[in-house]
């Protein structure tokens, strides 16, 4: 597992950077700010949950398939 450690460290670093990044107030313009804030908080929360659910399921399946079948041969 020795050669896997640097990869793991890099992956963790990238993940931390991704999660802990500052919010980009990229829009700057009023239009999107308005429509985003018009979505009620509960719906926003629901969208966040839904996005995470879809992404994580797909990601786990993808990575899991690779891991399982890499080990097979």
């Amino acid at each position, binding site marked *: 597992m020795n050669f896997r450690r640097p990869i793991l460290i890099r992956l963790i670093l990238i993940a931390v950077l991704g999660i802990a990044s500052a*919010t980009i*107030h990229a*829009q700057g313009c009023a239009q999107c700010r308005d*429509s985003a804030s018009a*979505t009620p908080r509960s*719906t*926003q929360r629901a969208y966040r949950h839904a*996005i995470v659910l*879809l*992404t994580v399921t797909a990601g786990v399946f993808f990575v899991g398939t690779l891991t399982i079948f890499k080990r097979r041969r």
Partner: protein
Amino acid sequence: MNPHRRRQSIFTTDHRTIGLQYLILALISVVIGTLLSLLMRIHLVWPDWSLPLHGPILPEDYLALVTIHGTIMLFFVLTTAPQSGFGNLILPAQIGARHMAFPRLNAASFWLTAIALLVLLSSTFAPGGSAISGWTAYPPLSAVASAGPGQALGMDLWLASIALFSIASTISAINTLVTIISLRCEGMTWDRLPLTVWGWFTAALLSIIAFSVLLAALLLLFCDRHVGTSFFLPTGNLVNGILHTKGNGSPLLWLHLFWFFGHPEVYIAILPGMGLTSMLLANFSHRRVFAYRTMIATTLLIGFLGILLWGHHMFVAGLNPFASSAFSISTMAIALPASAKVLSWIATTWRSRPQYTTAMLFSLGFVSLFITGGLTGPILAQPILDEYLHNTFFVVAHFHLIMAMAGVFALFAATYYWFPLMTAHRGKPARLMSEPLGRLHFWLTLLGAYATFLPMHLAGLAGQPRHYAQLTGIPGPGGSLSPAGHLLATTIPLNRLITYAAIFLAAAQIIFFINLVRSLRHGDVAPTNPWQATTLEWHPFLHPNAGPQASDVVITVHHTPCLYICSPSGDTFVPQWENKITVDLPAESKPE
């Protein structure tokens, strides 16, 4: 399994024939799609031109052209031809297998795809015409039957067609995956798989994930249209004079579900082409692929990251700014493996003296167009830039350069490269396509591609929106030209240029057809391994014309592909199936 003996029915389960059937379907689709795009371009610049047997192109006709052009090209050309067409044709041979894992499922998925195409084309004849909501089928336009011409039966036929296609694609992807995992021959470890196979593998994994979500989205849209639900319909839609007061849905839900599929879809379209480019560049440069293992990793990384960045199609849809940041970062992140691939392609051919066959030229063209199209990707990945550029022709230029041009260049390269394997059949000799015609085709197409799509960037930056059927004479207050009309009028000269270039580009493809048809009967007869390739599909015993006893020979693989050696005794190459390395290799270049 002797192809010489059995009479093949049209419902054959022979993987080569099914691959050719897919390719013919894709060829028909690309012709129709190109014609539709030409109609669009001509209408933009000469709006009064009247289509024979139809009359002038009305705005809804234009939108129907947009919809069917996009649907056909993306689904029936770019998803079928690289993955199912060439995949079925070549994949078993490249891994040393004699057949796909599930031949009958294979045939079933082809016929489902064919039926899907027929259903889509039949929507042209439906009352009201074809759907007009684009290949992206955004609600409420796509969810309310009275929202526009063609949105009743035409839209239902579109839904049925794409649903069938999704099922067919999923089945085909399962077949591909099981074949690659289980049917590799002796010695074919994961590290020795050709990069084309890695491309097919990743694209198949993405297909399974993406098309299922599309099917769910289509089901919800169907319910909205016919069962009275409102998953995607908000309250208060005034459609054709009728106010829809019920509804607590949001088009944003459709956008999320659709683009969760839509983004992996474009990677499905391009990944096999990227793998093929690596292999062809190595083949014709007589070089090893630079950083082979890294190329495998980047293929998988592009696949994985491709699942995480669908939100960049929704920057202006009112996404939470935090979500926009996340999607923007992952979109920029995918530029890293893509750039690594580009560097590898360049490094593979750097300072070699390649053999400039047509296939090599198209591979180099792929690299060129991929770079050009890819460079505008990080631009569009910035939400603040996408604010302006979304739905302009800048985006159109970006994805056409990458998908329509680079993706299609990969298909051309594959056709010229594998033509011997496509034509060798039941004792008929393997043939090569004509090189002079191929070179002419390449240069005209490259020129036409850049001439058509580079100016589109400028048109987009000038503000020309997508899907506008009318560029001239948009009326403003008091009968004068509106501000939009003024803006668009400035883009007319550019658009005229683009249309001329598009007609030129389409006309240049006639050379390809002439070459194709001519070479089928009168092309030069090809030797068994005409390109000095190292991958298994060129093994004499896996050749389509190998005798019946060839199917009993055990194929073994001894090392990675692209083992081209430059030694004092002269250039040589060792195909994957041969073990004899008679040259002294320096220690660090020993093959695994």
